[in-house]
Each structure stands twice: as C-alpha cells, then as structure tokens.
C-alpha cells in the first residue's frame, strides 16, 4: 500500500530532504580519514544541497491550501499500523529550513575548530541533521519517536568527543534528562495507540497523528499521556525546573554543537507541544496550561536573573536561552493567535539570534581561549567588525524593535496579556531589566580601554575572517528581514496556527 502523493516532479521531496544528510554520512564514511579537507567539503556540499532542497519545498507550501502541503506515507510495520508518514506544513516547513540553514552554517563554522577525528565529527553531524529533520517531518508517532531518539546519539557524541574539559559529566546529564522524558513519552505513545486500537478494533492509524487527533476522549488517558509528552518536551525546551542540563551541555559543547543545540534542538520541544501534545490531548493541555504558564514565567524571570550573574560568556547566553524559550511555552499555552504566532516566531528568531551569538562566542574563544567576562574589556578597539556583529546580535536578542527578536516577544506578551495581564506585566518588566544588564555587559567587554588580558594576546586577537562572516551573514540578513516584515513568516504558518487553535480548543467545544 505504497502511497506516495503530491511529489515535486515525481520525487519524494520530504524523504530526500530527510535522508540526504544520512546518505551523505554514509558516503563520508567511505572517504579516507587521511583527507580531512575533502571530508569537510563533502559535508558542506551535502548539507548545502539539503538546504537548497528545503528551499525548493517552500513555494509548494504556500500554494497548497490543505494543512499538509506534501505528505508521503508507506506502510512500515503493518501489524501495528505503523507507517513511514512524513508531511510538511508552514510550521514544520519553517523549522526544516531553519535546520538545514543552521546545519550548513555549523558545518562551515566547524572547519577551523574541529581538527581531530574530522571524519567521525561530520558523520555525527549529518546523522544529527537527519534526526532533527525527521522529527519535524514525521506525522507518525512511532516514527517521530524514533527520530527523536536518533537525535540523542550524535549530539551525545558531539558533546562527548569534541567538547570541553567537563564534557563527560555534561553528556551524561544531557542523555539522562532527555532519556527519562522520552521513555515516558514512548509509554504514552503506546498507550494512545492502544486506546485507539481498542476503540476501533484495528491497528490502522493507531500511530498516525492525523487519524488520532480529536479521537482521544478518555480524560485519564489524556491527562497521563499529556503529562508524559509534556515532560519530554519540557525537558527539551527546556522549561524550569528541567533546564539544568542545558548550561552544562552548552558550555561543554563545541561551538557548532552549541549552535545546533540552541538553534534547533530546543525547538524540538516547542514543536512537540504544537504538533503532538496539544492537538492530541487538548483537554489535558487546557488543564495543565496554568501550571505551564506559571513555569514559563518563572523560566523567563529566573533565566534572566541567573544570566545576569554569570561570569562565563557561554553560560550567560545559555541561561538567556532558558529565559527566551520561556516565551515560547508562554505563547503556546496562551491558546490565542497572537500568542501562538509569537511563540513560533520566537522559536525561529531564537534559532537565528542565539545561533549567531554562540557562533560569535566561538569566534572569540578561538582567539582568546577564554570566556571570562571579567578578563575582557575594550575589545572593540582591536576588532571593530567582531564587536559590531556581536552588538547586532545582542541587540536582536534583547528584542530591539526592528530586529526579529522584538516581534516574537511582543506577540507573546500580547497573547499572554489577553489571558492574564499580571503574567504579561511581570514578564515585560524582567525582560526590560535583563536587556539593560546585557547591554551593560556588552559595554564591559567591548568598550573602554583594552584589558591587560586582551593586550597580552597581541596579534592573535584578529578580526573576523571571511568564512566567519559567511556563517554570520545569512543569519543577520534574516534577522533584519523578519524584523521588518514578520508577516513574511506569520503568513507562511497561518494555516498551521489556525489548525492548531482548532484542535487545541477541540477539548472545550466537545
């Protein structure tokens, strides 16, 4: 019962996008490890072609009016009705492009820093890309879970092999947190599928998101399954109090690992809420919403405050991620168009901005081999371009109007205001305070007289190279573009948001 529908030129575009990096990884495995530059170029080529393919998919998403513009479905484990079912709509399309974009940027950014075990590194990275794309494109719960777990292993290796001094502690923490959440999600998936089988007497569609949406009525199952899904996603987002793995993982990961972690991996959680947890279990989601909103606000406040006291630049950005991702869950659980629009925008923008910041921190670290804020000062006098770029991304991060960070946070706050003005007010206040502090931090690092530490580096303290600019430029361009015209994005996923809101309210209407 192979049913490949709606292909571009007869080709299964989604499978091609998803599996191309994996095939590339296999090909790279065949290359001799004695030729690292060949391996680097091959990896870049593979990821860039994937990016181009994902761009080719975009026009199609706008042309089709149905929810999933493209979908591919093949029977996989017929005994349980498990299918290989991929589909893309505006929401997943945007995240897929974000993934493919950041992937080649990361691969390019790894050319310099990664010098040992080059082959294994790029193989891991390409498998990671396949895993992430699979998560965004799967419409079958089982398939989704498998890609979800596949992401874990290469990320584990990337932090564990190419990470910093305390990498092993960080990897173990990362894996255990993620695994506990995801395993409970597996039980929830199986329970959901079984309840569908028990209700319909057939396994057909028991794991299929589209068939399952709106059919799960048992309140106990809803509550338990939503709890398990939410835990898995909350750990990934990460929501307070499940965030403690993130700073460790970020600090220990190599630059590209940090970028992909902040840029894409954290989005898996938000996407999971939007695509799976809430549409499948709307009633429970409504019940849990106050709790999640409360945790989101705590995350926003807590992340900002803890970020302020950090002395390590990378840890600072990691904690600001916790704060920014709090907006995502806050927006989603506002259950109104502004909030959800804002949450998705925030996901994408955070992906662009934080990736840029981590790239910049990595660039600085290449030169100074240090991330202590206290040791810096007057950096701008030596490397003006670097300082300017850093300033740009930092401004974007604190939500300066005109840059893309603003629109997302503004919409989220608007959405939250409609639900609970107190919450929105608290979040706004903290946000402003944090912004002031972050800019003061920028001042300490880049302006004023050159610090003795930076002076001691002498001619090592060079400005950004063309390759580094090439990694940052696309991000900066998109930050400006979406800052001026956020409707470019919101239009693209308007259908998805409408669908989401329909299913999210399904529990109330019934």
């Amino acid at each position, binding site marked *: 019962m192979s049913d490949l529908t709606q292909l571009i030129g007869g080709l299964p575009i989604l499978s091609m996008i998803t599996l191309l990096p994996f095939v590339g990884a296999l090909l790279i495995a065949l290359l001799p490890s004695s030729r690292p530059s060949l391996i680097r170029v091959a990896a870049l080529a593979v990821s860039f072609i994937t990016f181009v393919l994902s761009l080719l998919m975009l026009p199609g998403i706008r042309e089709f009016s149905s929810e999933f513009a493209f979908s591919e479905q093949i029977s*996989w*484990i*017929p*005994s*349980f009705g498990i299918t290989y079912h991929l589909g893309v709509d505006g929401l997943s399309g945007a995240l897929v492009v974000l993934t493919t974009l950041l992937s080649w940027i990361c691969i390019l950014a790894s050319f310099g820093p990664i010098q040992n*075990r080059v082959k*294994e590194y790029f193989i891991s990275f390409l498998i990671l890309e396949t895993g992430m794309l699979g998560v965004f494109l799967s419409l079958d719960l*089982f398939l989704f*879970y*498998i890609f979800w*777990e*596949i992401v*874990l*292993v290469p990320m*584990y*290796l990337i932090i*564990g*092999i190419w990470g910093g001094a305390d*990498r*092993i502690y960080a*990897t*173990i923490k990362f*894996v*255990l947190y993620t*695994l*506990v959440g995801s*395993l*409970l999600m*597996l*039980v929830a998936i*199986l*329970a959901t*599928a*079984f309840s569908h089988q028990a209700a319909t007497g057939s396994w057909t569609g028991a794991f299929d998101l589209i068939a399952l949406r709106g059919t799960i009525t048992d309140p106990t199952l809803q509550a338990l399954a939503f709890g398990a899904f939410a835990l898995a996603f909350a750990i990934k987002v990460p929501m307070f109090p499940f965030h403690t793995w993130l700073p460790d993982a970020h600090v220990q990961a190599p630059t590209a690992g940090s970028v992909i972690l902040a840029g894409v991996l954290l989005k898996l959680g938000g996407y999971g809420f939007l695509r799976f947890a809430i549409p499948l279990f709307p009633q429970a989601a409504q019940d849990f919403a106050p709790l999640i909103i409360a945790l989101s606000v705590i995350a926003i406040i807590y992340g900002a405050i803890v970020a302020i006291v950090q002395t390590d630049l990378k840890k600072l950005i990691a904690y600001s991620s916790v704060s920014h991702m709090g907006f995502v869950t806050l927006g989603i659980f506002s259950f109104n168009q502004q909030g959800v629009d804002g949450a998705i925008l925030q996901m994408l923008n955070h992906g662009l901005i934080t990736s840029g910041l981590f790239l910049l921190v990595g660039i600085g670290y290449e030169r100074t081999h240090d991330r202590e804020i206290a040791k810096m000062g007057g950096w701008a006098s030596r490397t003006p371009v670097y300082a300017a770029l850093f300033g740009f991304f930092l401004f974007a991060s604190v939500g300066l109007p005109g840059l893309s960070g603003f629109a997302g946070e503004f919409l989220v706050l608007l959405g939250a205001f409609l639900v609970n003005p107190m919450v929105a007010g608290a979040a706004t206040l903290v946000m402003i305070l944090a912004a002031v502090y972050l800019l003061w931090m920028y001042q300490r690092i880049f302006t004023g007289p050159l610090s003795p530490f930076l002076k001691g580096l002498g001619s090592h303290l060079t400005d950004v190279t063309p390759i580094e600019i090439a990694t940052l430029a696309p991000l900066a361009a998109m930050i400006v573009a979406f800052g001026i015209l956020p409707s470019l994005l919101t239009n693209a996923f308007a259908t998805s948001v409408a669908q989401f809101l329909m299913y999210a309210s399904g529990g109330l209407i019934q």
Partner: protein
Amino acid sequence: MSGDLLTIAPLITVGLTAVAVLLSDGLTPNRRYAPIAVALAGLGLTSWILLQQSGGTVTALSGAYIGGPFVAYLGLLGSAVVAITLLISPDHLAARRYPSAEFAATLLFALCGAILVGASGDLVTLFIGLELMVIPGYILAGYAKRDPLSTEGAVKYFLLGSFSSAILLFGIVLLWGSTSTASLTEIATALTAAGAGLQPAVAMALALITTGVAFKIAAVPFHYWTPDAYQGSPTPITGYLSVGPKIGAFVLMIKIFLIALLPLAASWIPVVAILATATMTLGNLVALTQSNVKRMLAYSSIAHTGYLMVGIVAAGEGEASGIAGVLFYSVAYALMNLGAFAFLTAVQGRPGATVQLSDLAGLGRKHPMLALLAALFLLSLTGIPPTAGFFAKAYVILSAVQAGGIASVLAIVAVLNAAIAAFYYLRVVIYLFMRDPAEVEVQVATAPLLRAGLVVAAAGTLLLGLLPGGLIEAVVKAIAS
C-alpha cells in the same frame, strides 16, 4: 509412527549432528574448525527442517511433542544462538588450548533440550528437556577446566542449578499429582474445573514452581549465582549462558505459567510482578557499580530478565501480545547480547586477560570498526532506535500497556530502568570513544570466524531495528497456535 519421526525430525537432526561432531573429531583429531563446520552444517539442515514445519501444529508421540510454528520459531532462534556462539568461540578457546569438538557437541545437546522444552506437551517431557538444556550449560561453564575462575563459576552454577531443578521438580510432581495428569493443557482444564479455591497442594506446587523458575531465569533475589558463573566462564561461553539457557527458561515459563497455570494467573501475577520490579531495578543498580565489563554485562542481563518478565505478566493478564513481546525480545536480546560478548571476546586476545572498563579507553581510535560494532550493541541494549533492542522494549511495553493493571505499572518501572541502564551502557561508549587510550592496552584478536559472528549479530541487530515487521509477523504466527 514414521509421521511421528518426521515431526520430531529437528530433535533427531540436532542429536545426530552432535554425534557427528564427535565422530568427525575422532576421525580427524585436533582440527580446530572441522567440528565447527560439521555443527554448522547440521544446524543449517535443522533450520531447513524447522522452516518446513512452520506451517501448522502437529502433535506426535501421544501428545508429548507438539511441533509447529512455535517450535519452528524457537528452534530457529536456538540454532542462530548456537551458530553465533560456534562462530565466536573456537579461536578464543584454541588460544587457551581447549578443544572445540566437545564444545560444539555439548552446545548441540543443549539445543536439543531447548527444542524439546519448546515442543513439550507434558510436564515430564518438559522437565527432561529442561535438564538436557541446562546440564550441558554446567559443562560449558567449567569448560576452561584449568582456570580456577571457570571451575569456580561452574560449581556454583551447577549447585544452584541442580538445587533449583529439585525445587521445580517437586512443584511439578505435586502439580501432576493434584491434577492427575501431566499434560499441560489438561492441567489447565483440571485447574479451571477445580474453581476458585486453591487446594493446599496446588498452592504449594505453585510456590515451588515459582521459586524454581525464578532461580532458572535468575530473577532477583534468586540471582546471586549468575555474576560468578558468568564472570568465571570463558567469555564467548558467558555470552551463550546469558542468552541460551535464559531464553529456554522463559519458554519453560511460558509453558508452565501461561499454559498449565493460566487459570491461576490471579495468584501468580502479583508475585511475578514484584520479582520483575526487583529484578529490573536491582540488576541495573548493581550493574551501575561494576568496573569489570563482563560482570557489568552479567548484572545487566539480570535486568533484561526483568524486562522479559514484564511480558510474562502482561500475558498472564490475558494479553496474548505479552508472549509475542517475550518472543520478539528474546531474538533481539540474543543478537545484541551475543554481539556484546563477541566484542568482549575480541578484546580478550591475550589468555588470562580480564577487561576492566578503563582498559577499553580510546579503543575507538585504534579499532574504529570494532568499537563501532560495540557501540551498536550497547545502544541496542540501552534500547535506542533504530536498533533491535528498541523495538523489543517497545513491544514488551506495548503489551504491558495493553494488559493494563499491574502490567502497566511495570511498563513505567521498565522505562525508568531503561534510563538507568543507559547510564552504564553509554559509559562504555564514553570509554571507547571519549577517553584517551589506556596505558595498558587490551590485546585485540579478531579471527575470521569471530568477525563473522560479530557481523551476523550486528546485521541482525540493525536489520530488526529498521524493519521489524517480518519478525513481528513471525511472532504473531508462532503464538497463534
């Protein structure tokens, strides 16, 4: 009568192969590979016969032997286990100057017993099959007879094994006496007819059988013989012992608990559920603290026992997919655990070597392929997709969720344990890939046969992970009978 002989043909073939192995060694003494070749040929023939018999259920010899898809499934699994063991062992044994003929023959005798356990229709045949399966295990555990560790493990294995056999046997005899029949299905009928009240002797039989079986599958707290027996045996044999007799014991459990004692399910489910919880949790927690890799795998195999017991509980709750889960898990467990032990065999190139975790540091750099295969087996044992181990766990958990009640609580316990297990399995991966090479390096020896064994196990682990559909259908067919 000739029809009966045809039905029990797999049994006869395996037995004759064992004799042929010994004869071939007599004709061409001291050839390392000749007995292995004969044994593998015999296994091939057996597998072919089993495939022919996978059609429908046939009863032979007054109901003592029930052939059909169930036996075919188990027989093929057993043949695969024995074949992989035969591939990974001979060079390891030869390096320590132990012969391969007696080894191959003993393994084949054990397979004979395992097939009989799967096919038995009555308690007597079941018990004899069990003994034929486990007694060769005692011999194999002590196969390195000049190694104090091996004989030490063997004597503990033997004593505890015989002790548990005696307990189990007393239970069997009492059950047979109180139901006036040895036939498994007739026992179930008699117990159903007896109604809800439990006769004192039946209760006693149930207690004895549960204890005996718990010993045989090494469930906590009847597990304490396993680590010593496993650690002492030559490594490839440990692999076999942690897989073959264990799966066989689970088949015995299916036969006794899910056929004969199914009417008493309400009585034994709570006990088995508690044992399963203790087994998973304790096995994992103790494995966590081990620095000797072999001992760690021994404890982790106890934890896997617990996962399999979850399937039994689910089946006891009336969910047939519980048996299916156990059968699927058995195949996955066999492949990944044998693979892990094959890896351990490969890094024990030097006689007398024991492998500490720290000895594996940096192995990924010198032997990337070997380390990669090891990582595959470890990921599968952890239960990370797309590997066989993941589907096995998912299947068992699915059946437990379906069964509801106690079983669904066990499902949660099982997944939390999987996270604990991830910690120590992935720690090995850390040592393989993320640590700098150890000062005293392990000596890697990969003979061609061992390599073949590794590749077969790895291919199976990966294939089942990507396309589990075929095996699921085979499982469903096997339990339909």
